[in-house]
Every structure is written in structure tokens, then in C-alpha cells.
């Protein structure tokens, strides 16, 4: 009898939502768990790093890793799991693209530390004590992982074979991804294991999207009463649907709020934010540069909107890194 494939679930800089997403398979989790041998899942069962280290390299069939890489411990774990697993899957937005915590790359490490441990209104820290990689307490040495300069997507740290998008991935996508990988033939390396269509295609409001959208200004969701039936772009709201991979069943729009882009880009697009920005720019009603500029100026926080989930993996970040390197 062939042995069941060994599988790892691990979390790096994450919120736990990706682990909840696995639990949200509900009854189907029993089926999935029955087909695999889970050898490491700190949140649920096998917590021993040493046990993973003891496995022969390549002994694990697949490592599903969620969360971005923010500190030295996460980097070590990603490298360890890469050695042990034939297939590494970046699971969820943070692992795939950097995720919301990736917005921290807009700030320097000292500024982030200061905002957490020196500046809070409730902070009482006259000696400016900061968490330290090495510290001594009661004469005893204690260690913490290094908080690194930047947030990185998983494939910026180790080679990644497949991606499962979403914040968190929806149960249907998780189920399909897992059963696909367990199938007889692996998909092409680098595949994003989700439907390769823009969210607008599956949106329940698709039919209300005008043939030709045009904008003179953009609205913020708290400023308007949002119609529950009409296309959100047609209401002047910045919905990321056109630039975002679907497969989630457009659930946020069913909640009557705009898509914020957690599905990342489709395979036809390299940079989700650039795609959205160019799409919007072409839809501005005025054609004079000043008119276009005036309209686009009503977009609040373009980086936080267009790169909400993908700043570390974006071209924007790559350009910035190249600049730093050149300097």
C-alpha cells in the first residue's frame, strides 16, 4: 500500500486567518486529512522543528506556508521547509504577495519599532527599552528573532512552486488547490491555483456595469449610501474587481463593499496596482492632463489602495530596491 503523502502547514508573519481558512473546509477537512499525513502543523499538531530537521531532504510532498517573511525565525523556517519539501506552496496573500503587513515596507525599521514601543499614547517607557535580540534578565540570557528591514513575499526568500491566492483563500479554492496537488499530474510550476479570471467576471453585479465607465471623481465608501444592486465602480467607488483575480465568488461585494484586491493579479498582469491605475486613468471623463490629474487626485491613498496586499511583490518595490542597491 502506498504511503500517504507527507504534508506541512506552517505560518510565518500571518494573522491565523489562513489556518482558519483550512478549518473552514468544515466537513471536507476530514476527507482531505484522510488522504494525507500531516507531519508538521504548529497551530494544530506537530510542533517540533527538530522532527522536521530530522526528515530526509525532499521527504515531504508539499509544504503549505502562509504569512510573509518578517523576521529571522520565519526566514530560517522557510529555508528548512524548502529543503524538506518537493513542493512549496505560498498560501494566502501574505505568502504570495506580502499581504497587508507588507505595507510596513513604506516605513523604516526604526520607525516601526518606535511606533510600537516608544510612541503609543499609553506607552510608559522612560528608559526607552526595546525588545532585543539578546537580553539578560535576572542574569539569564534570553533571545528573540531579528526583526528584519523589510517584509518579503515567500518567493523572495525561497523558491516557490505554487500559489494559493486570497486573504484568506476561500474554502472552494483551498479544496481545489489541495486536490489538484494530490492528483496524478502536477500543474505547471509557478501556477496560481485559482481561476484565471478577473473578479468582475463572476460578480453578481456584472450586468449593471456600464458599457463605458467614466469618472470625474472617486468616492470613499463612508461618504455615500451604497446601492446593493449596482456595480460599485458605476457608483464612483474604487472597486479593485477589474484588476483582481476572482474565484472567491466576489464575497466582499455581496457584503456591499468594494473588492480590495486580495486575490492578486491574474496571470495576464504583472503588476496589479499598475493595471488598476492605468484602467482608471483611461476612464477619466476629461481628457486634458489637468482634468485627469484632478480626478485621479480624488483617489485616497493610491499605494494603500492599489497595493493593499501586494507591495513587497510589486514592481514599485522592485524599483525601490534597485534604487537602494544603486545608491
Amino acid at each position, binding site marked *: 500500500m502506498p504511503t500517504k503523502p507527507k504534508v506541512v502547514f506552517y*505560518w510565518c*508573519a500571518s*494573522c491565523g*486567518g489562513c*489556518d482558519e*481558512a483550512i478549518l*473552514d473546509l*468544515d466537513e471536507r*477537512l*476530514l476527507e482531505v486529512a484522510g488522504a494525507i499525513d500531516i507531519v508538521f502543523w*504548529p*497551530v*494544530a*499538531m*506537530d*510542533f*517540533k*522543528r*527538530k522532527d522536521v530537521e530530522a526528515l530526509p531532504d525532499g521527504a515531504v510532498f508539499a509544504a503549505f506556508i502562509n504569512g510573509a517573511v*518578517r523576521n529571522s*525565525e520565519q526566514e530560517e523556517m522557510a529555508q528548512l521547509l524548502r529543503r524538506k519539501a518537493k513542493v512549496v506552496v505560498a498560501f494566502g496573500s501574505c505568502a504570495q504577495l506580502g499581504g*497587508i503587513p507588507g505595507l510596513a515596507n513604506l*516605513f523604516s525599521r526604526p*520607525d*516601526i*519599532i*518606535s*511606533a510600537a514601543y516608544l*510612541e*503609543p*499614547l*499609553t506607552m*510608559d*517607557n522612560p528608559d526607552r*527599552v*526595546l*525588545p*532585543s*535580540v*539578546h*537580553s*539578560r*534578565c535576572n542574569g*539569564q*540570557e*534570553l*533571545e528573540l528573532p531579528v526583526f528584519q528591514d523589510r517584509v518579503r513575499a515567500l518567493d523572495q526568500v525561497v523558491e516557490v512552486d505554487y500559489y494559493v491566492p486570497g*486573504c*484568506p483563500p*476561500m474554502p472552494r479554492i483551498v479544496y481545489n488547490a489541495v486536490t489538484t496537488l494530490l492528483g496524478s499530474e502536477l500543474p505547471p510550476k509557478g501556477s496560481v491555483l485559482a481561476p484565471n479570471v478577473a473578479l468582475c467576471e463572476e460578480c453578481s453585479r456584472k450586468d449593471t456595469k456600464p458599457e463605458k465607465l467614466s469618472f470625474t471623481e472617486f468616492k470613499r*465608501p*463612508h*461618504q455615500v449610501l*451604497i446601492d446593493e444592486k449596482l456595480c460599485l465602480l458605476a457608483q464612483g467607488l474604487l472597486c479593485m474587481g477589474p484588476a483582481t483575480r476572482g474565484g472567491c465568488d466576489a464575497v*466582499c461585494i455581496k*457584503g456591499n*463593499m468594494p473588492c480590495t484586491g486580495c486575490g492578486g493579479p491574474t496571470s495576464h498582469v504583472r503588476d496589479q496596482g499598475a493595471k488598476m491605475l492605468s484602467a482608471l486613468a483611461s476612464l477619466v471623463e476629461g481628457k486634458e492632463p489637468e482634468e485627469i490629474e484632478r480626478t485621479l487626485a480624488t483617489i*485616497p*491613498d493610491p499605494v*494603500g489602495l492599489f497595493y493593499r496586499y501586494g507591495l513587497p511583490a510589486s514592481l514599485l518595490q522592485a524599483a525601490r530596491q534597485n534604487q537602494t542597491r544603486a545608491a
Partner: protein
Amino acid sequence: MQKDTEPQSGTWQEGSARANSEYIRHRITLDPITRLEGHGRIEVFLDDAGQVDHAYFQVPELRGFEKFSQGRPVEEMPQITSRICGVCPTAHHMASTKALDDLYKVEPPPAAKKIRELIYSAFVAEDHALHFYFLGGPDFIVGPEAPAAERNVLGVIAKVGVDVGKEVIAMRRHLREIVAMAGGKPVHPVFGLPGGVAKRITPEMQQQCQKVAAEAVEFAKFTLQIFEEIVLPNTEYVRLIVSDLYTHRTYYMGQVDEQNRLNFYDGKLRVVKPDGTEWKKFGPAEYLQNIAEHVEPWSYMKFCYLKPIGWKGFSDGADSGVYSVAPLARLNACDGMATPLAQNAYERYVSTLGGKPVHHTLANHWARVIELVYAAERLQELANDPELTSEHVRNLPTATPREGIGVVEAPRGTLVHHYQTDEQGFLQHANLIVATQQNAARIAMSVETAAKGLISLDHMDDGVLNKVEMAFRAYDPCHGCATHALPGSMPLVLRVHDAKGKTVAIVRRDRNGDVKRD
């Protein structure tokens, strides 16, 4: 943090090295610790007699939400801050949404408040139930001294019946479907806007809420019955609950309504002293005068304490500002429950444990079940409210934003979001006081006390490991882990090092619960 300016690891002076060889400290590392949402580890140092000298509960992670929230449009904060925790995203989403109400000085319509509390009650019930059956439950439904191989969800099912396991899965799904129906999705919902909610509840949706709420009340009653019939008659377990190993006399905080009854969604924060009398009751805006944060170099976690009393280190008693939040603390801080079944259960809890306040950490489990009953009853009240289906669910904000504070009771305790913005509503400063921070000092004390009372070089068997874990699990387990399909005891490894890091002993507990010492 600055690596270069850190004292180098291994820079023991020769003299201290000599001194240390006389006084050998051993070190035990529990890494990672388990059933905890997020990363954590415990470092235990033993003295030369093999007894515990100190134990440290460390949190090795930081993501920096306070900083990268700056510059974001503040209306995005409910969705950004939900990513702090994917296990209790609804708590962050709700605290953030209430901070937006305050920021824009806009009162949500009555129906919107009811929808919010309906979603919130479903979320709390789901969260508490999962914990009871799959995380904390095995320790006391099966028993702390039971063979490790049975001390897991399978053991729970063996004790309460196979169908119950399936029921828990189904109940969790149904409750999460309510959150999804009203808020888009259960992990990282989208309903929160200043002055209301994004979406109304239709009569059809209300019917589904009523159906699920009725099931939830029955389910909660059944859960309470399990606790009262399986746990309470076990004198050994009750003895453990009330033992000094798991007892700290601290202050307690929880949100209450006008009649000092527990409320998850809204009210004032009430703090009681270690003797149970009221220390203070204050509105959200006054949290700044009452809560402060302390930093230790050995953890990324910040430790909260009561500001007027001050940080006196990791100690309990009325002179120490250490306080606690979450179910035990909430039941100490309130005078009762607002729904009948929960009130009834609360009275039995208080009388069984010898009156208030209850200082026994492990009583958190019982308190959590009582809160589950309340959440389910409250869900049903709201689901049956005719106003729930009103079409008026938003009031548009008109005021110029400047500053807003929102408070809710997350399943694990009081949660505060405080924002300052510019006039266009772009965030300038965010202050976040999360539940676990407020329990951090008491958890650290609980772990150290349990470790000191239980661990020694000669005592590191499975029962010891589990009982040290129980000290933190009562406060802050991961609500999303270890569910139905993954039975087995939690494998653990304890490494004992000497002061220079050389391993002198390894104790392993494998998935079958077998303990071996290499």
C-alpha cells in the same frame, strides 16, 4: 532591536562564567508552545538544585500595525486591522468600526447597532464553542491526569458521544455563515462603516438567523450541561482549578452595561480590585488615564497595567497594577448576566467557587461556557427583533474627523482602538490595546508559578508538560486550531541546556502521547 549595539551573545565574563560553573543554571525551552494563536515560547531556567529559578513567556513576533496604518484612509481601518488576528477578525473589525463612529461623531441607526451586535454574538458563540470542545476541553472533560493519548478531541468525543463532534463542526459552520451573510466573509468581514453597516438584513436572512440562533441556544445549554455533569463532579479537577498553582489575586477588567451586566458590544469598562470591590468604572475615552504599557527587552509583547497603580513588576495583589481580561475577568468585573440562562449558570459558578472574585485561572474555562450561553441567548434576542430588518442601516457622517476611540470585548478580553486623523480622515496615529497584552503579565506569572510548582530536573513527564501548558491555555489558546480531523496529543519537546547552551537532556512527547527522555 539595534543588532550592532546589542551586548553580544556569549559575552559572559570569565568571572561570571566561573561563578556560573559553581551555580549551574539549566535551561528548558518549550518552542513553539501550542494551541496558541500566533508564535510563542517558554524559557525555563533551573538552578543547581534542579528547581525552577525563573520562567519566561516570550512572544517572538511583531508586525507593526501602528506604523503602517499611518496615512491610510481611516474608513479602511476596520478591514486593515482585522488582519491583526484572523481568529478574532470580527473583534478588531468591530472595535475599529466603533472608533469610526466616535471619530465622525455619528450615531448608527438602531437597526445597524442590532445587526452589528447580532454578527458579534454569532462570532463570540462560535469562537467560545470551538475552544471548549477542541482546545481547552480535552484538559478537563477528559481530565488533566488522563493518559495523554486520550487527552484530545477524540477523548472528548469518546466522553460525550460521536455525534457531538459532528454537531460542533456544523454549529461552527452555521454561526460563521451568519457572519458571512451579513458581513461578506467570516475571516475578515467587511460590514463596518462609520454610522452603521454596509448591508441590511432582509426578512429572508432574518429567518435564517432565527433558525441558527435557536440551534445555538440549545447547543449552548447542552455544552453547559456537559461542563456541569462531567467536569464539576470530578473532585480532582475541581481541586486543580482552585489550587495555588493556578491562582493569582489581580485586578480584573470587563465591559458592562448600565446595570453592570456583562456586555460584549458596548458599555463602560469596569475594573474590580483583587478583593472584588469596584476600583473604577470609566468610558472608552478615559482608557488613557487608566491603562499603560510596559516593555521588556525579552519579548515583542507589551505588558499592560493599571496606570494609576503603576508597574510593580510581575506580581499580584492590590499594590500591583497587573490586571486581567477575558472570561474569568469579565465575570469578576460584572454583577451578573443580561439573559436568564446565563444568569442562572453564573450564579451556580459563583456559589460553587466560593463567591467573587474568582482568582483561579482555570475557571476561565467555566466562565467561557457561561459566556457562550449568553452569546447564544443574545443572538436569539436580536434575531427575533422586528427592527432588525429595517432598511435604515446607515447615517452618513458629516462631522470633521479628528479623534475616535472604540471598545469591544473580544473573546479573549477588552479591545481598544484609538485613532487620530487629519481633517480629511487620513490616519495619523493609531493606538491599539489588544486583549492578550492585558493578560500578558498575568500569563507570564501563571506560567512561572506553574513551572516552579511542577517542573524540576526530575519532574518533566507528560503530566508536568501538560499542566504548564494549561497555565497559559486557559487565557489565550488559538481558537482556530486542533479541530476535528487532527486528533492526537500535542507533541512537545523540552530541551534542557546548561548555561552555555549545551543540551543536557531532551524530553519528548510524541503524537501518541508517549514520553521519552533521551
